[in-house]
């Protein structure tokens, strides 16, 4: 861990003002400190934002506003979230450990960095960590890497579970920064690697996440967060599926679907969602949607299995959502 200046901010304005080149905001610290110990992140200044007044969950129109500093655990166990956004609750509780969820903040969760082995290991090149140095994951150890939206510069995945649910819920991210406040639709918050994999999000330098706003609740019954991983808990997703359905009898009125573990951002396919809408909530419909989604998947040397796994997981996730039997968090039998 390198030397850094430590600044404790009292207000959002002060935090934004304290920002400069090489600075990082710190809240839960569960990813940033981890990365600093590996010398992956070497901020010259840490701006402690934990004292900012962003630690509340409050009504926001027909939806809910979650302050950026609310811990993942507080979000998951909030009564309003449990009742109206159980998809979000389940996704959060499928990730990390209780200890990490108690510390990690909502804003920080959005800014988690990839778990790519090479990104984390400063002994190796990595375009995300050291732009232009190359991507050894391509043709290397890439079992856990992306199958959608990759570039020849980077095949890393976005690691969050919470964000997969937020993508399906079509949340909005409120940010504040040197240019003032603005809203970013969730689907535009994270970006694909393209030519500049060093940039994970569309957050401008010095901008700070102040809240995540949830629109009106639509999937309190028909939802699931299905996560497949290399052990039954405390592991990142190989593939995860956040699904929310509004049903009209046997027919699908609205479908929202986001995949985790497969791309540099929560992966949505609007065509597939549109394909489902108006269709009967049957396995055949789900298979059609799954086929459409994986049609554009591109395997790497070791992660071809993710295509098949994603296809199957999408079908199962939609079945769970349609049946109103979301994946249990503690019973590891897949419903």
């Amino acid at each position, binding site marked *: *861990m*390198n*030397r850094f200046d430590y600044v404790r901010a009292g207000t959002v304005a002060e935090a934004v003002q304290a920002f400069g080149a090489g600075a990082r905001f710190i809240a839960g610290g569960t990813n940033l400190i981890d990365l600093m*110990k590996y*010398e992956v992140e070497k901020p010259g200044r840490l701006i402690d934002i934990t004292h900012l007044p962003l630690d509340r969950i409050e009504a926001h129109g027909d939806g809910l506003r979650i302050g950026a500093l609310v811990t993942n655990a507080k979000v998951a166990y909030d009564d309003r979230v449990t009742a109206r956004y159980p998809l979000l609750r389940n996704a959060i509780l499928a990730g990390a450990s209780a200890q990490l969820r108690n510390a990690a903040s909502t804003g920080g969760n959005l800014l988690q960095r990839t*778990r790519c*082995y*090479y990104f*984390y*290991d*400063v*002994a*190796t090149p990595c375009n995300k960590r050291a732009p232009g140095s190359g991507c*050894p994951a391509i*043709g*290397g*150890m890439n*079992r*856990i890497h992306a199958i959608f939206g990759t570039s020849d510069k980077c095949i890393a995945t976005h690691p969050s579970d919470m964000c997969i649910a937020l993508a399906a819920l079509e949340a909005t991210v409120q940010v504040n920064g040197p240019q003032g406040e603005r809203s970013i639709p969730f689907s535009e918050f994270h970006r694909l690697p393209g030519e500049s994999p060093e940039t994970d999000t569309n957050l401008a330098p010095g901008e700070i996440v102040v809240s995540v706003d949830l629109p009106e609740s639509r999937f309190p019954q028909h939802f699931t967060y299905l996560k*497949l991983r*290399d*052990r*039954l*808990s*405390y*592991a*990142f997703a*190989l593939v995860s599926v956040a699904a929310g359905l509004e049903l009209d009898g046997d027919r699908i009125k609205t479908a929202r679907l986001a995949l985790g573990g497969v791309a540099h951002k929560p992966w949505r396919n609007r065509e597939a969602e549109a394909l489902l809408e108006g269709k009967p909530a049957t396995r055949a419909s789900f298979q059609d949607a799954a086929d459409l989604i994986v049609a554009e998947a591109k395997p790497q040397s070791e992660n071809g*299995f993710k295509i*098949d*796994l994603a296809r*199957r*997981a999408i*079908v*199962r996730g939609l079945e769970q959502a349609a049946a109103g039997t979301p994946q249990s968090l*503690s019973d*590891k*039998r*897949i*419903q």
Partner: protein
Amino acid sequence: MTQTSNPQTFSSTGRDTFVGTPRSRIDGPAKVTGLAKYAGEFAAPDLAYGYVVSSSIAKGRITAIESAEAEAVPGVLKVITHANRPRTAWRDKNFQDAVAPPGSPFRALYDDLIVFSGQPVALVVAEDFETARYAASLVRVSYAMQEPVTDLKAVRGDAYDPPTKREGIKPPPAPWGDADQAFGSAPIRVQGGYSMANEHHNPMEPHATTVVVEQDGTYTVYDKIQGVSNSHQYLVNVFGLKPDQVRVLNPYLGGGFGSGLRPQYQAFLAMLAAQELKRSVRVTLTRDQMWSFTYRGEALQTVALGAEPDGTLTTLRHDAVQGTSTFEDYQEVIVNWSGVLYRCENVALTYRIAKLDTATPGDMRAPGAVTGVFAIETAMDELAYATGQDPIALRLKNYAESDATAQGKPFGSKELKSCFRQGAERFGWAKRNPEPRSMREGRELVGWGVATGIWESMMMQSSAIATLTPDGRLTVGNSTGDIGTGTYTILTQIAADTLGLPMDAVTTKLGDTRLPEAPVAGGSWTAASSGTAVMKACRNVGEQVFKLARGLENSPLANVDFDRAVFADGRISVAGDPGRSVSLVEVMQAAGVDKVEAVEQAGPDKDFNQKYEAYTHSAIFVEVKVDEELGQVRVTRVVSAIAAGKVLNPKTARSQILGGVVMGIGSALEEESMLDHRIGRFMNHNLGEYHVPVNADIYDIDVIFVAEEDKANPLGVKGLGEIGIVGTAAAITNAVFHATGKRVRDLPITIDKLL
């Protein structure tokens, strides 16, 4: 009064009050309150912190190390590299620790040569941990890289029979019959290639050494090691010290599993820095650096079985190729187990090794057996299907009553049949439909599998001290370590029973080179070795006290022979005449002695070993539930039936087996250190991406200890540290086949292999 008596055999006059009964760990209170201190936790007023800089390449030379920037950081005391390191011994022999394999041991910072990725290339020593860590990041190392070879498959053809055999490791026996010809003519044949991933031990405590420089210039070393005597010998030899200049301690060890058998480079570096700086130094490895030394090396195996239609084995061939480093010929027993387990007329077993640009592999819980038994026990399951036999019936049909790999010597004891019988009953094996994919619950396929486990039962030369003081307290101990196995507790039970004292009157001390020497805690030999030594030392103390008692005026024991003495409730009484008795405390007070002490040796029984072969056995029954569509595997039920002689403490013994089973589940389903062969580096070198089982992975595990009488040592114990893991992976593989119809022969069975 101190007396050292000659080794002798004897019958115990003590009664089993504590031995054989479930007892909570006596080190429990220290461990649950945080007071138990581990190697990297001992303080010293002048303590400096060392942080290791690791090589980013696997093979080549260091062309330059720039350390000026690091040295300029306030608080940095020294950056030690190969270029400026103090001199140490130069002969290989001085670096060879007690359990080193043949070859030229790795020496940290020896020269500019890089022989494995993660090799230490510098040690930064600073006043505090954070400064050392920061400065380490400023050390710039330039390399001339060479292409490393770490892919065992690529060098399989270069594998060789190790010219120098590793001490204590039996090479494969000469073949008997003609396995290949018999295979050609066998009516039923099963043949397959089997592999397991590289695994790293990853004890929860990272390796650490604290070297305290005492006022008189001697060194007190707290080292993460499974036997302090090994570190002591190593440090004395490498640094040219007199034995009494170094004391090594390790009262608690945060898990070993074999990773702490050999002194590791952090011990060398801490001592090097302490000598150089003339102050106390601690070096703790990071979790990543736990991938920079010993590991369980993958092995490429083939098994070919031929049988009559009724399942009678006619031929068995088991070949293994395993990796080693470029500088040492690590060896373990992988294939011999197949010849021990099954009666067969044509058998060929081979084991070869191939050089890789990695650190030297090492012993990891049941080394070799985990690997080899996975292969043979999976192949036997395949044979069961090929012959239409029940897997247990097949094993019983080919059950070995003697050890064909040892000229047909009988087993000292072998209650494996009881393991199958009792395990099957507890598991409900009779209700199994043998047809693959025949059992399901909802969307999950249910599979039941079984396998045999086997491990050698060993005893090593060991010594122990026992000291009785007039306050009625007994202190026993030796230099071995309690690595979580429960050694403190069982030695206390043995000592208390031998002298008829309550357990809380006994203090057991371990992990200190000032105590009598004992071997490293490994091989499942500690209970037999240290247990017998402690028992003999206590017995000797008892005899001395008895003599004192008999010599007292008006002694109630006058004219009584020692073999009639009974030690119980803190008293010596006469067998059959309990009215005649005297308390130990009274005897010592009346005799005016301040202590009665004895050091005793115990070692393997040569006569017994000439007549018999000694193994522990197990039968493991596993239920898996596999999501048919998504390939997720859950090990929902395990019954492990163990035949391992006498169980000293059913409570801690059960935990030993649970731990073995859990690690076996990890090895079957999760554990895999992934090598990027292009750079010769393990890439998932952290506990987030190297998956060991978590609590949610572990369901019901039922442990049965079957009765087994064994006479290899006076205690009748055979060791429990390893047997719990052996065969577990095969039982899981077999259960997965039963559930899904898919035969996975390369571990771990991750989701992708079942889609």
